[in-house]
């Protein structure tokens, strides 16, 4: 199934790097978005007075 290529190490490392960078560009903004939203929800809950303090 996997094609047998000359210079396999160089070719597969290049394609692997491509995959890693694309996945990273997809995931990173989504993780950051989740973090921002969680912070904002916490802030809103604090202000509206129905905040469950996990440390209480």
């Amino acid at each position, binding site marked *: 199934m996997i094609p047998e290529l000359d210079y396999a190490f*160089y070719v597969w490392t290049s394609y692997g790097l491509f995959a890693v960078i694309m996945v990273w560009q*997809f995931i990173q903004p989504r993780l950051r*978005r989740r973090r921002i939203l969680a912070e904002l929800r916490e802030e809103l809950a604090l202000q509206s007075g129905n905040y469950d303090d996990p440390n209480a």
Partner: protein
Amino acid sequence: MIFHRLKVGFHRLGSPPTFHKLCRVLSPWLWAGFLLCAAIGLYYALYVVPPDYQQGDSYRILFIHVPAAWQAMASYVIMAILAAIALIWRIRTVEIMTMAAAPVGAAFTALCLATGSLWGKPMWGTWWAWDARLTSMLVLLFIYLGIMGLYAAFEDRRKGARVACILVLVGLVNIPLIHFSVEWWTTLHQGATIRLLGESRMHPSMLPPLIWMTIGVKLMFGAAMLDRARNDLLEQDRRKNWIRQLIGESA
């Protein structure tokens, strides 16, 4: 009439809620388009196209390297156009988009340099050479990183964006330098294979993966830039009412 409607559309994009919605709606479609193009492109690149008469299978790195290089430069041109609009009209969403383009362009530049190195070692016999093409591409990476650093260094986001936008325009001079480096000076890197004017130097049977990958990374650039812009907007406007409403709806 058409001009007027364009103008209205342009101004509406300046409105944060409209812009946020646009990012949210467009991003999944662009990512899906990228996945489709990349799947077709990778299949052609690894299974369908024949090996090269000189370089064997190592030339398959080209199908990653060249689209990445083109996108690294195209991203910069797009970023510079956005920077000029941002500086002249002072539209905040455009400033945010300009700054969101930099990390994506930097990623493509890094990918281009890394794959170039992986191609250079077996073919040229070296990972790196300080010729005009390779050096100007490395300079592009540093310019991208400089823009990101400058933007991050300011407490006032808008001020940071404006200062970084000026750096974007200064760095624009590097783009023709990269393109013409192989013509103006002697370099280890070979000249252009694909030419807009005149005949290309690649056999037509090898072109399909290059075309698919090039379209794919263009869509991906748009998607990744909008994702980042949306986050930046969210963070800047966290105390504003429209964000509160938005969170209220989604919660």
